[in-house]
């Protein structure tokens, strides 16, 4: 029963969601949003589970003084700090347990939670994102090293697209006559992005969609069970 009940739920909800995609009449038209609401409610309860896991995992590492234990401590302290100031003075539009903290707002310019969010969390998040620029450079270097015919093609295409997207690329081929308009780097770049690139992306998307249909059907029919923990 422990195994069959989730399978029955998966079958019923899977079939209902598929049917409601094609039937605009109530109750089918409201079914997806209702199921999404249920998911949100369950996810809300599961958040507590996540926080418990966060504490357990970090406290264990701090206790055992594992390498870099102070990072785990910093993580927990940051979590606690945001939680406490959020609870005490609330966030932008919401009141906290002890009010809006007008005195602190006067000093910081905003609520403590929002101040920390804007001045600590946002710069840290932006720092992580900006690392992408450096990683793209190192990855592109490896991808463009000429080793085979394919990597040659990749490099030539990349150079055309990169140059075509800059004003310098346009300037390089500006001297070409009107009859050779297609060979202007910006036009060539647009052509590559619009046709070969779109075609390849759509091929991946179509095959992924077929994969999703197959995967969903296996789950709905109970053929695929390993996501429940066991396939038996």
């Amino acid at each position, binding site marked *: 029963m422990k195994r069959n009940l989730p399978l029955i739920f998966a079958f019923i909800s899977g079939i209902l969601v598929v049917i409601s995609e094609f039937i605009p009449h109530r109750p089918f038209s409201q079914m997806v949003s209702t199921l999404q609401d249920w998911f949100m409610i369950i996810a809300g309860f599961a958040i*507590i589970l996540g926080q418990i896991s966060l504490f357990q995992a970090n406290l264990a590492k701090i206790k055992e003084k594992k390498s870099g234990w102070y990072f785990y401590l910093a993580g927990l302290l940051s979590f606690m700090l945001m939680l406490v100031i959020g609870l005490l003075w609330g966030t932008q539009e919401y009141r906290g347990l002890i009010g809006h903290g007008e005195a602190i707002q006067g000093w910081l310019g905003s609520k403590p939670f929002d101040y920390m969010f804007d001045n600590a969390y946002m710069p840290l998040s932006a720092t992580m994102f900006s690392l992408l620029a450096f990683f793209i450079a190192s990855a592109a270097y490896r991808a463009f090293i000429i080793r085979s015919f394919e990597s040659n093609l990749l490099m030539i295409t990349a150079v055309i697209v990169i140059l075509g997207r800059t004003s310098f690329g346009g300037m390089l081929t500006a001297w070409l006559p009107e009859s050779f308009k297609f060979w202007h780097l910006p036009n060539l770049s647009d052509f590559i992005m619009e046709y070969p690139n779109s075609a390849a992306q759509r091929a991946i998307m179509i095959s992924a969609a077929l994969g999703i249909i197959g995967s969903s059907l296996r789950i709905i029919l109970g053929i695929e069970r390993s996501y429940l923990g066991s396939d038996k």
Partner: protein
Amino acid sequence: MKKLLLVVGLFLCVYVQLSASSLFWVEDVPWDEGKALSLEWNVPAETVYLQKADSLGAWDLIYAGAEKKYKDSEVNPQQLYTYRLIVPRPEIGDSISFIATAKPIEQWFYLHKLSFLLILLAVSFAIIYYVNGARNGKDYFIRRITALDSVDEAIGRATEKGKPILFVPGIGDLDDIQTIASLTIMSHLAQKAAEYDTELIVPCRFSMVLSASREVVKEAYLKAGKPDAYKEERIFYLTDDQFGYVAGIDGIMLREQPAANFFLGSFYAESLILAETGFSTGAIQTSGTAQASQLPFFIVSCDHTLIGEELFAASAYLSRDPQQLGSLKGHDFGKVLVILFIIMGVVTEMAGWHWFKAFFEGAQ
């Protein structure tokens, strides 16, 4: 005489009614959820004013302009709505108004999704047909997927080096089919890891994924006959924040130096940050996602990549279960169908028959 006047009067009433309805009319938008009404008018005017009666009967202006039609999407099904069209006549310093009513009806089928339904049914029947074939003992050829064949190699390498395996189930929640596909692969991977006594680390972005992951790994260890080797604390929640999650995983990769990294599931801007950090640690990396825009990053930085559909086929491929392998044959049927439709679409468009394209465009 009275009878004649009555007949003439009736005729005039019907005529006025009919002529008015051909000047301004409201219709229910067909094949929808009863949330729209289509209004059209055929009056010679530069500007018209369209009003809608609210629940108290007061008129609210909903459109003013020179268009000849308007779609009101702010209606509820099975309720009667009244509209008034005002056509100003500046030459006589007056205006003419027309009134029309209609009721939006909830339909029982989205007709514009018919092509979508037909394709879905065709692919689903093909999958069921091949699954049944596999059940009856038919052996299907499935092409090799190198990335999946390398799973054992990656686990073996981690075992030899005595280092853990890192499994990242993507940044999607449990309502994302890519996350489900990722968990099914994790089940097979965890079983192998348990058999080889290799540690498995699973950082999760969402609490729901965390609880599902714990259940999957626990069952896998149980199946491998090593329930005592299961360490719940190695499957843990990091953070809901996208880049915080990436920072956490990067830290794990640098501190714990896993010998094998698996990035399978839904990934966005963080894909390259993860894969490049993993590459710098020298780990053998396997990735897979259906996000077409992230695949180039994974292909460049990882040793093996599951492209799109392969992510969903992975569980069936790894399980070697004939029924699941049969379903993969159904995917192939879908591909043949799509190729045929593309060819037919090109031919019919070149021949000037646009009905074929229009039929499939309706599904959008």
